[in-house]
């Protein structure tokens, strides 16, 4: 789920210093069919998450066991079939969307705010502070992201909150490095000097002048990170360290359905596809955005 290579790619994107206008980016993004497909899919997922109660009843269809209807293949009443407890798989996937998107977004927000803060002050002030922060981040980066997340959940215990903390914290170093690179790329430019010359303080310079001008690559990185976080959440749930049953979560559904794959493969088919489509759509958007921001390098 982690990806230092994404960090590097984003840092390179920052180094090209080609900052296009929002409208320009959108015009180019619109031309990319794959990015538009991604956008369509993720809007569909968002729609499912927001309107989940109208699509399926949580207690009745997603949670309540119904042994009489267990392990039914897909049909008109249960489009994706039912699981080993007779629960409607479609309903569980719809409600699982909420968890995945919510936890994904919150963890990325945690990583973005803490990592972003560390990266911004490291890049802006430089010197010893920068050195100290980067050395600490090196330590975090030396542990593969998912292993760090597993370790944190293992110690704190499996719950939705701890899951968000674990995935969030393990993504801090990536965001810190990207924001630091972004700040470094603009901090010596003349409009920053100008702001300093008219007496703006560091906080104003960083928040009003530095960050807005380095936003684009950070948005790309965050998009890709939401994708990998969704993957990470379901991975942790799969090994029993994430969302706990009976709460519907895609990875957890795969874990419990595993025992039945010999005869009922649809049990693992649909939750897996949900993960693939959610992650793929965000990756498509992230890729499209990156190309739109740096048209030279498609």
């Amino acid at each position: 789920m982690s990806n230092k290579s994404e960090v590097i790619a984003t840092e390179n994107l920052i180094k090209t210093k080609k900052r296009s206008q929002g409208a320009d980016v959108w015009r180019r993004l619109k031309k990319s069919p794959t990015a538009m497909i991604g956008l369509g899919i993720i809007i569909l997922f968002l729609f499912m998450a927001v309107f989940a109660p109208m699509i399926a009843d949580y207690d009745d269809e997603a949670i309540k066991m119904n042994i009489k209807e267990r392990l039914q293949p897909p049909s008109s009443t249960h489009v994706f079939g039912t699981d080993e407890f007779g629960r409607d798989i479609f309903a569980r996937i719809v409600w699982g969307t909420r968890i995945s998107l919510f936890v994904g977004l919150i963890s990325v927000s945690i990583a973005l705010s803490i990592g972003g803060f560390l990266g911004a002050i490291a890049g802006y002030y430089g010197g010893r502070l920068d050195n100290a922060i980067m050395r600490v981040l090196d330590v975090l980066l030396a542990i593969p992201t998912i292993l760090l997340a597993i370790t944190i959940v293992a110690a704190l215990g499996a719950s939705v909150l701890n899951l968000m903390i674990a995935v969030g914290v393990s993504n801090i170093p990536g965001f810190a490095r990207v924001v630091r690179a972004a700040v470094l790329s603009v901090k010596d430019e003349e409009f920053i000097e100008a702001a300093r010359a008219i007496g703006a303080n560091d906080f104003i310079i960083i928040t009003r002048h530095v960050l807005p001008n380095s936003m684009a690559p950070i948005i790309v990185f965050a998009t890709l990170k939401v994708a990998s976080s969704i993957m990470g959440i379901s991975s942790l749930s799969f090994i029993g360290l994430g969302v706990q049953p009976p709460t519907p979560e895609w990875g957890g559904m795969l874990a419990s359905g595993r025992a039945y794959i010999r005869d009922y493969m649809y049990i693992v088919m649909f939750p897996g596809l949900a993960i693939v489509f959610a992650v793929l759509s965000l990756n498509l958007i992230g890729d499209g955005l990156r190309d739109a921001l740096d048209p030279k390098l498609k």
Partner: protein
Amino acid sequence: MTRYILRRIFMMIPVMLGVTLLVFFIISLTPGDAASMILGQEATEESIQELREEMGLNDPTAVQYVRYMGGLFQGDMGRSYATGKTVSSEIAQRFPNTFVLTVSAIFLSVLISIPIGVVSATKQYSIFDNVGMIIALVGISMPSFWTGLLLIIAFSLTLGWFPSGGMEGFISLILPAFTLAIASTASITRTTRSSMLEVIRQDYINTAKAKGVSKNVVIRKHALKNALIPAITVIGLEFGILLGGAVLTETVFSWPGIGRLMVESIQRKDTPMVLGSVIVFALAFSVVNLIIDILYAFIDPRIKSNYS
């Protein structure tokens, strides 16, 4: 060259110390009492206290850490709460399995991804390139534990070609290695392609063509070596992701490696074992990055001459 390698090893030391400190601290947050866990339900309060004292669990975390590090330098990582065996012997027994799995996966990835990435770049926007890149993106987006299940359904349960789990000979390595290789193959393909695209736009490629060097030689001799420099970085990083992926793949295929050991230990609240597994994973990742840095110096003369 030797100076460069020594310098890199030297730089690894503080990072590894930091890793042990961090992981030790995180694990120490685990609730529950190890002594009562070992002695079980029937133990008396007195005997639990005695064991706590004996294990040093009453000391401050910092003291426990120093003691742990003292042991670690002598290869002693404590004993498993669950089995009573030493952590080092358990890990030593499982490590080769994870090593075989991850190394075959990365080998497979590199073997598949570099040629595809190169061809994609040289035929940019062709059908091969477009389809290849979409497949690569899908490959990155597939969770390995799900792909593993699908492969088991197709090749084990339906076709019966491979075992669905366990570790019995070479044949049982194939499905897990492929499962683990998919994501990194996709990712290395994408990097190879984009760095190749970057390189073939460079002036020195034009210089080579202007000399009359044929297209194939330009790609093989002039472009590839330069394009491999960023690709190798990604291969190193992918190895880290692969180690993480090993935890899931080993779970799906009941592969007796460190990843599975770690998951089992977490479920048993066997903290010394968890701690040991994470540290070994981090150390393996650092060693891989060290190897990558050394490879780098062989390919890129700019690094080599900085240290000669």
